[in-house]
């Protein structure tokens, strides 16, 4: 029977091939990540890798699970015949699960061979360049990584298949149609899940809209993104039906055969996996990639405001002989020190060096006053904290902060003002005081006249200086959170979800083979058949992508608002426009190309 079943599975290769491709791709992701984690496991800080890996693994798990389910669901006709001639539900379920496990094992084996040979050599330089892993890391084949790849890929695929197989064999052999398309319980469950996700998402959005902490807003916003993914995945079917009904009432319905078929297929062969993939990718791109970009955008706009029409001179002072007092304009000398607030309870905690700016010059106090709500900045030395730091750390005017450099002594200063300023120059500004041993030698001077600048300094206008800041450096001297990894944060989910969407499209089109053959026989041209399929797929991908883009943009604007308020700007999400359009368009293009290719490849048969 095993050989017979293998023959049978081979006959279903049009459905299984995309599933195998996705399994292989997922196993490659798991293999690459597992190898990196095992190799870098002893290196200590692998925070960025964990972040990237978590996102990639979640996306991969969703991909594998969804496509495994999809692949099983499309085989209901064969399953029905097998059950009629006497295969028990349990046995069919076990065979489907075994088949899935076998496919996953094969994919894992190929991935284990390909990952160290192809994927990692290409990936490691990129990760080194992004600062995710240290240079010179020797990434080679590891047993633990192989086991993780095989176990991870197989378990996820088997879980996905087991759930789908249970649905497939539920009920009588001849009862009903394809799983997931009929039955009250199948309509009820997504509805309940969508309702719960909507309630949770609305509650999260409400909190995000009210919070003043940029970190809280980002994290809760991310949870709201996950709720949105669930809502779109579960509720898209209802949206499509509702839109179709509305169009039928108020609009002119297309009479063409492809349009009619596309509408019917949308109803009966709804590729929900494609919708979920598009929603995940669009929302992750907009949110995870968008938040660092938006905060960078806001920070640059604020810098242009606070620098105004001054000139910006940058120079390096040798031997640490930095003096900020006495010069014209505003002098900001970069430094590093250990910062301890009087509010800190844990005196024994190990503290890292923070970036600070020693501020001086003839216009320093008036410049700082312009950054704060206070009418006057008290005379004498003091510390100006940013509102971002004040919200996060609880520092207020009057608190005392100790700045020190190991081996060079300490300085204890009061907080004299809270400034609406990004952390471009450092986590805090030290006004009218020196911190021994802190200065790095890099000095930035803001002056009204070009002539006031030292001869060896590099002078630029405010616009040029802001434009010349590397990504993330406007947000913080240490680089904006996640900004360096943004290309990976954005790229990994998109790549994974694109694979999912393409594979799901291929599977769902393969499931329409019978219809396509009939259409071929009754005289529908290949172009018309392709048109019918791509119309249905296009509505789903482009529609759900654009809805996700609109919802994601709104959520992003809300999440960025606390940061923008803290640096004294209105949130601007002008950058969203190209990303919001590009991601759904990219998905639409890939899915339509896949749909067209698979449709065209369906040959006439009996």
């Amino acid at each position, binding site marked *: *029977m095993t050989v017979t079943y293998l023959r*049978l599975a081979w006959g*279903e290769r049009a459905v299984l091939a995309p599933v195998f491709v996705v399994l292989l791709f997922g196993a490659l992701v798991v293999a690459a990540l597992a190898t990196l984690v095992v190799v870098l496991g002893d290196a200590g800080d692998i925070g960025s890798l964990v972040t990237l890996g978590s996102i990639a693994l979640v996306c991969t798990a969703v991909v594998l699970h969804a496509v495994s389910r999809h692949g099983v669901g499309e085989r209901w006709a064969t399953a029905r*015949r097998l059950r*009629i*001639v*006497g295969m*028990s539900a*349990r046995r069919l379920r076990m065979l489907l699960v075994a088949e899935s496990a076998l496919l996953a094992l094969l994919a894992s084996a190929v991935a284990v061979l390909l990952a160290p040979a192809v994927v990692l050599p290409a990936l490691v330089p990129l990760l080194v360049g992004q600062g995710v892993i240290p240079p010179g890391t020797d990434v080679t084949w590891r047993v633990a990584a192989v086991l993780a790849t095989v176990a991870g890929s197989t378990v996820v695929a088997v879980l996905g298949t087991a759930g789908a197989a249970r649905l497939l064999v539920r009920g*009588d052999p001849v009862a009903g149609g394809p799983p997931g398309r009929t039955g009250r319980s199948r309509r009820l469950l997504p509805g309940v899940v969508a309702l719960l996700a909507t309630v949770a998402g609305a509650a999260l959005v409400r909190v995000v809209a009210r919070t003043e902490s940029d970190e809280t807003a980002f994290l809760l916003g991310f949870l709201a993104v996950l709720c949105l993914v669930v809502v779109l995945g579960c509720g898209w079917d209802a949206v499509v039906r509702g839109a179709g009904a509305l169009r039928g009432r108020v609009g002119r319905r297309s009479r063409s055969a492809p349009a009619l078929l596309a509408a019917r297929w949308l109803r009966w062969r709804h590729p929900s996996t494609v919708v979920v993939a598009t929603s995940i990718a669009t929302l992750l791109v907009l949110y995870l990639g968008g938040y660092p970009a938006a905060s960078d955008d806001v920070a640059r706009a604020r810098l242009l405001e606070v620098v105004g029409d001054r000139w910006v001179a940058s120079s390096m002072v040798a031997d640490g002989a930095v003096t900020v007092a006495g010069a014209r304009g505003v002098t900001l000398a970069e430094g590093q020190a250990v910062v301890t607030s009087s509010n800190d309870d844990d005196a024994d905690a190990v503290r890292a060096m923070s970036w600070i700016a020693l501020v001086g010059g003839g216009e320093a106090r008036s410049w700082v006053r312009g950054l704060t709500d206070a009418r006057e900045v008290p005379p004498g030395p003091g510390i100006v904290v940013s509102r971002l730091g004040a919200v996060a750390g609880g520092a207020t005017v009057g608190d005392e902060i100790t700045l020190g450099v190991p081996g060079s002594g300490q300085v204890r200063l009061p907080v004299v003002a809270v400034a609406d300023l990004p952390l471009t120059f450092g986590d805090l500004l030290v006004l009218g005081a020196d911190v021994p041993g802190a200065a790095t030698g890099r000095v930035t001077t803001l002056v009204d006249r070009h002539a006031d600048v030292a001869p060896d300094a590099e002078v630029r206008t405010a616009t040029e200086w802001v434009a010349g800041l590397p990504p993330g450096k406007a947000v913080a001297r240490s680089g904006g959170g996640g900004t360096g990894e943004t290309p990976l944060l954005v790229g990994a989910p998109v790549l994974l979800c694109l694979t999912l969407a393409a594979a799901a499209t291929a599977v769902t089109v393969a499931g329409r083979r019978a219809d396509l053959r009939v259409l071929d026989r009754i005289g529908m041209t290949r172009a018309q058949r392709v048109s019918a399929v791509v119309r249905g797929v296009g509505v789903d991908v482009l529609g759900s992508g654009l809805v996700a883009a609109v919802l994601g943009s709104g959520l992003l604007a809300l999440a960025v608002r606390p940061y923008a308020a803290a640096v004294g700007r209105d949130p601007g999400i002008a950058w969203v426009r190209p990303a919001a359009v590009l991601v759904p368009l990219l998905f639409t293009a890939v899915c339509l190309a896949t749909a067209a290719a698979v449709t065209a490849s369906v040959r006439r048969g009996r």
Partner: protein
Amino acid sequence: MTTDRPDLVAPRADPTAPPGSTALLELHDVERSYGRRGPVLGPFDLAVEAGSATALVGRSGSGKSTLLDCAAGLVTVTRGSVRFQGRDIARLPEHRRAALRCEQFGFVFQDYTLIDALSVAENIELPRRLVRRPPDPRRVAEVAHSLGLGDLLHRSTADLSGGQRQRVAIARAVASDVRVLFADEPTGALDPITRDEVISVLLSPSVRASRAVLIATHDVDVAARTDRVLVIDGGRICAELLHPAPERVLAALRAVEVDR
């Protein structure tokens, strides 16, 4: 439902086999409902004995296929019992019912119920493989040859004509020595000549020997070639005709239509 028309035989209260005989398949007080709607089938009683051929006729949607599915254990009945050789298959667990379909029931449906990925020989021996019996190539070849499929054993069923595919389905049932053969519109998609060939095979003495054949059909000529015709309407057996001519079957159908 009963009728006072002289050309119809009213169904017996319990249309079982003649007194003294042991029915192979007995359906008693069977009813099938979907959701909260009323029953789409039954309640009714039916008995089928070995060696008999029974046709179910009626309008589309009258319940012929559902009756067949209930009798074959493909659909669980909402009420009543379906007994095969004395065992109530409605009470059997799913895997036992599956095994029963495999070993005792054969299926010849309009959509052929064949697996196109397998060859003719593999389709014929599929039930044996399902119950983990070793394949019997000699028996497969013998049955295939008797049904005119001898040269097609290694061809994919996807490459066969409709009549050939139905013969493969019959061969599968015969090769498995099933006791009841269920045929749902087995000639629905066939031309008259192929239809006659398939029905001749299906109702041939060799196929009917020790087997019961239950056919759901629209074709009065096919129905007239069976021993007994049951007219179904609204999910119930309305009339029973024994060894009828095609004209009588047609008249019975028209009478039911008039009585609606």
